[in-house]
């Protein structure tokens, strides 16, 4: 509370990003966890809530006659532009928010103050909802080839690895420890995925400390042991996900990559995925394009190309495909690493898992996968998502890219995934929101030290409880698309811009009707009807038995007409748990009118239209102004697109 310099400002304007003249006036409140904007409109109480932990950047612009503008960019890609009447107030809000959005200590994080009405026992169940050991058991582990090693209990061998790790049966603790000393941050090769069908595995590690010529016998033995754990294969791939040049540069720092001559039967391969800094800049550039006020098609496509974002997405997916094919089609094990083995390695291993195993394409499976390859293996969420005030150079949208890869696959295989895009977007929001404990800290050790299981809540059980919102109605477990290895195309034209995530809050850009919602509704109805039919049949049978030919009870006609109009529930993709203090979505979002047509005609448009009408040679208005210019009084909540841009 001590950080709030000014709890309330009146007469604040919230500008519409796309048409700034369409603004709303209201009161701005700062609370310990949220910024809340309450619109002063008679009759309706429109509120916009923004969680402080989602604030990514704040920009105070120079004061003008109308006030002082404060631009807030959020990590979930919401952009808010407030105009605060007095500079002084704006300054105070700016400073307060700056502090509130950048907690210095972990205990200031939202998850520690988020208190839904759940008791300790339920909380324990929440955290037990996902069990990684169960997933390894599902894979068929441990078995005669792979064992659970206790070498990293208490995080002694690698402080960024989880305590439970699977290693080849023949790998002895001295080999593991020896190998870990030859790898960055002690991240020795360990199992990420095991294919029951053919014993091929995906293993992961960090880069070897090979420098120009260093060798390590134990590391070589470790790889040998991995290779031997796949009895049918006589070689394995070692995939370095960095561009070759980056890997070579690392050699000068005593790091580097495996020398094929020193390891028996490995095939070494570079797959050039760029580093976190390139990815950060790329996303920033793409977001600049997304935020252009009225871009032409060319501006947009050029900007998208210049950002390089889709190129990077394709690189990650290409790498995932390479590994998935090696495992499924060649039956060859793969060791994947990058530099530290927690960014690109996590991306590539998890994408490969999604391609390989239909289980990871289910709701629960994707949660497990994120828990396994990202959370347990020490993807540095706190640094990458900038949860705490820290080094901006550590921030990078690595997990965004994974989620987008999954989305791109869903677009290619609409029947193969149990979950919908809303699921991915919700996960994305919560990775950044700090509302749940799952994504706090940089590794398992830190999370244990923070005592997250006892003090915070788990997102996974929340998502599971609300799974009805996240089911893809087209998912068919028995569909041909769903079986075995997914074979996506990575031709450039297969990659799309993910509007639903990056322009999520620009309501006017999205389809106005949702096939998915419609199908979900009729799916539900179909189920109900089937039940009804069954019960009727039963009744008829009973009646027939009794030989009483009275009229069977008539079915209740269905009034509930599933409808797919989406323009009033555009925030349906974030649960609106107001009492729980949820973020971003105000409990009463301004609703679009149900009718499209504006009942009142534009009273003021005429005067505008007559402007500039006496131009020479009878050419009226050659400018591109719409007859229904933005000045005209128009329903501010109308979802209608403006066609004036040309």
């Amino acid at each position, binding site marked *: 509370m001590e950080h709030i310099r000014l709890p309330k400002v009146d007469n604040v304007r919230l500008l519409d990003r796309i048409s700034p003249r369409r603004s709303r006036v209201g009161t701005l409140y700062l609370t310990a966890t949220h910024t809340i904007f309450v619109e002063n409109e008679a009759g309706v109480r429109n509120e916009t809530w923004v969680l402080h932990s989602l604030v990514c950047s704040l920009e105070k612009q120079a004061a003008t006659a109308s006030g002082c503008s404060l631009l807030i960019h959020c990590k979930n890609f919401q952009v808010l532009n407030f105009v605060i009447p007095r500079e002084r107030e704006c300054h105070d809000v700016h400073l307060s928010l700056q502090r509130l959005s950048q907690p210095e200590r972990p205990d200031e994080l939202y998850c520690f103050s988020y208190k839904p009405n759940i008791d300790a026992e339920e909380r324990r169940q929440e955290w037990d909802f996902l069990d990684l050991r169960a997933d390894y058991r599902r894979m068929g582990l441990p078995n005669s080839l792979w064992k659970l090693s206790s070498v990293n209990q208490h995080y002694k061998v690698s402080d960024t690895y989880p305590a439970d790790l699977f290693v080849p049966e023949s790998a002895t603790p001295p080999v593991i420890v020896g190998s870990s000393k030859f790898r960055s941050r002690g991240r020795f090769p360990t199992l990420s995925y095991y294919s029951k069908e053919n014993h091929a595995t995906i293993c992961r590690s960090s880069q070897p400390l090979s420098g120009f010529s260093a060798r390590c016998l134990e590391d070589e033995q470790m790889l040998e042991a991995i290779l031997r754990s796949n009895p049918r294969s006589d070689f394995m791939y070692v995939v370095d996900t960095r561009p070759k040049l980056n890997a070579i540069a690392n050699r000068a720092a005593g790091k580097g990559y495996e020398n094929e001559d020193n390891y028996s039967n490995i095939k070494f391969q570079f797959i050039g995925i760029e580093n976190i800094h390139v990815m950060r800049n790329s996303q920033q550039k793409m977001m600049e394009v997304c935020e252009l006020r009225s*871009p*032409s*098609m060319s501006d947009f*496509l050029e900007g*998208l*190309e210049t950002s*390089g974002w*889709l190129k990077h997405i394709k690189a990650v997916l290409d790498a995932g495909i390479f590994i998935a094919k090696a495992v499924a089609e060649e039956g060859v094990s793969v060791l994947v690493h990058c530099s530290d083995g927690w960014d690109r390695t996590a991306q590539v291993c998890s994408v490969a898992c999604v391609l390989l195993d239909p289980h990871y394409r289910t709701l629960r499976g994707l949660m497990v996968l994120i828990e396994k390859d990202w959370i347990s293996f020490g993807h540095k969420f706190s640094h990458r998502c900038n949860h705490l005030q820290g080094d901006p150079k550590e921030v990078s949208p690595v997990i965004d890219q994974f989620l987008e890869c999954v989305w791109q696959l869903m677009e290619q*295989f*609409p*029947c193969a995934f149990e979950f919908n895009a809303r699921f991915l977007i919700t996960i994305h929001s919560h990775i950044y929101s700090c509302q749940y404990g799952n994504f706090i800290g940089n590794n398992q050790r830190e999370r244990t030290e923070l005592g997250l299981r006892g003090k915070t809540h788990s997102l996974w059980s929340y998502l599971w409880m609300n799974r009805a919102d996240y089911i893809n109605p*087209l998912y068919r477990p028995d569909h*041909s*698309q769903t079986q075995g290895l997914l074979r996506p195309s990575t*031709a*450039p*034209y*297969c990659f*799309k*811009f993910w*509007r639903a995530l990056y*322009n999520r809050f*620009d309501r006017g*850009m999205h*389809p*106005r*009707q949702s096939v998915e919602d*419609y199908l979900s509704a*009729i*799916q539900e*109805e179909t189920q109900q*009807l*089937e039940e009804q*039919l069954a019960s*009727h049949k039963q009744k008829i049978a009973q009646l027939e038995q009794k030989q009483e030919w009275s009229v069977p009870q008539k*079915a*209740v*006609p*269905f009034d509930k*007409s599933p*409808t*797919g*109009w989406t323009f009033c529930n555009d925030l349906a993709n974030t649960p609106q748990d107001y009492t729980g203090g949820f973020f971003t979505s105000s409990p009463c979002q301004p609703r679009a009118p149900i009718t*499209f*047509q504006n009942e009142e005609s534009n009273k003021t448009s005429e005067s505008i239209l007559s402007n500039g*009408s006496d*131009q020479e*040679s*009878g*050419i*009226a*208005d*050659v400018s591109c102004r*719409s*007859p*229904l210019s933005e000045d005209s009084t128009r329903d501010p909540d109308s979802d*209608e*697109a403006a066609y004036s*841009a*040309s």
Partner: protein
Amino acid sequence: MEFSEHIKTANVEDVVLRQPLHPPGRGTLCITGHHLLFSDREEGSCRQVLLLLRNIDAIEKSVENLLTCSGLFSNAGLSQRLSGSSGTITIKCKDLRVLQLDIPGMEECLNIARSIETLSCLDSMSELYPFFYRPSSASLRDQWGLSSLERHYSQMKELHDRWRLSTVNRDFSVCPSYPQAVIVPKSTDDDMLEKVAKFRQGGRFPVLCYYHKKNGMVIMRSSQPLTGANRKHCREDEQLLQAVIDGSDKGYIIDTRSSQQALQARMTGGGLESKSCYSSWKRLQRQMERGKALQESLIKLVEACGEESNNMDRWLSKLENSKWLSHVQTALSTAGLLAECVERDGHSVLVHGSEGTDSTLLISTLAQLIMDPSCRTLEGFLTLLEREWVQAGHPFQQRCAHSAHSHARLQQESPVFLLLLDCVWQLWRQFPLALGFSEALLLRLATEAYASDYGTFLGNNQQERCALGVKENTHCLFQALLRPRERDCYSNPLYEHTELAIWPSVYPQSLQLWRGFFLRWTPQTHHLEEAQEEIRNMVIEWGKLALSSCPASTRRSEDVQNM
């Protein structure tokens, strides 16, 4: 003319056909006056591929030792010596499919290639396949077409007060590209119309194209006025337009050219409506790409889609460079503007560009889809296309003579109709429940406009079709699309009638490449088709249950019945 003169080799055995989405097959190739027929001879399968020659946009042939056999046909001995050789013909279709034929025997290969080249672009319309197509399921006596202007007018009772049906063009002498009947303001007589026709390019005087029932406002369309360099004016034209907005204070003219283009048109006899003569009309210039530029845009896009390159930057820059999506954006936003004028601003609009046969029809059609629920059903949409494109004189024969692959010198080709279908697809994407037809219909129309068994898209206007006896001698596509089995495939299972206008979003983020068409022959599209199939099954399943458990008690189950 006998087709056989053009066929030197009618049959070749042992040909290998490679086509997208199928494994290669070996079999017999036949060429007839209108078709290529390939029958697979593999064990256990009997696949046949029948390709309309008219669908072939371009072919490329490569034979071994082509240079040494330039005297092939004058030297009989040589052809024998070369009998062990073979050739390959790559066929690029107007529906963007690319096929490859490996033909044993160089002479056979060259003969086939030559036949395809000649027969795929016959000039004489009466020799085209629609005049020979006689399916057993239909009779030439079946009704041709879905509606006529006469019928349209008689159904629209609310028009009768102020509008009349004029048959001034019954012999096509006033305007060769108009149908015989048109709807005009009641106060303008036929003499006036004749005078107005002389003042408009190609005689396309302003006619009614859409009446907005909610407020009585209308969309008119015409061609440009022939004011010329010395700014002629025509009192009858002014009177006609005044009669349109009778009782209202003003109307809009949406000119689909830039103001500079419109001014330049004066130099060649065209022009625009001056403020002084049309004081109640407010002109809005909205430049839309047309003609050759549009065709080149299509060629570039198709080339980009066909490229094997794996490079993302290259793809995006080629996509941008083609400008196709920009044209989609312009068309939709101009149509949106037009609909806004009528629906929200409550004024009548006259639309024209120069000839009034291309971009004019494009935006007036889209605006009608946006505003009028009755053209969003399957029948409604086909009727709209019949009225606004076929009868209104979009020159299909000229515009669709070649598509994106052709090496022929461009003449009048321009994919305006394809652009319309793309825009309609974008609407369908944004309002997946509001349109009564499926993507499959749009794809079918995109194919049929370029090469067809049916007579619907033959010729450039009604006059030509009358002269050819299209109605008497060919079958009608629109009727065929409404037969029960076709209807199942071409209707949208999710369709829900809505009275609301469907305003499309025209942000670049909201518009997408029409993968179903431009990448139709890639395996990825197949997965999406499977999803559509899945949707259809779900709705059918639901519909059955809804019917069986509460017969006719819900509105929506009736929809399913009617589907």
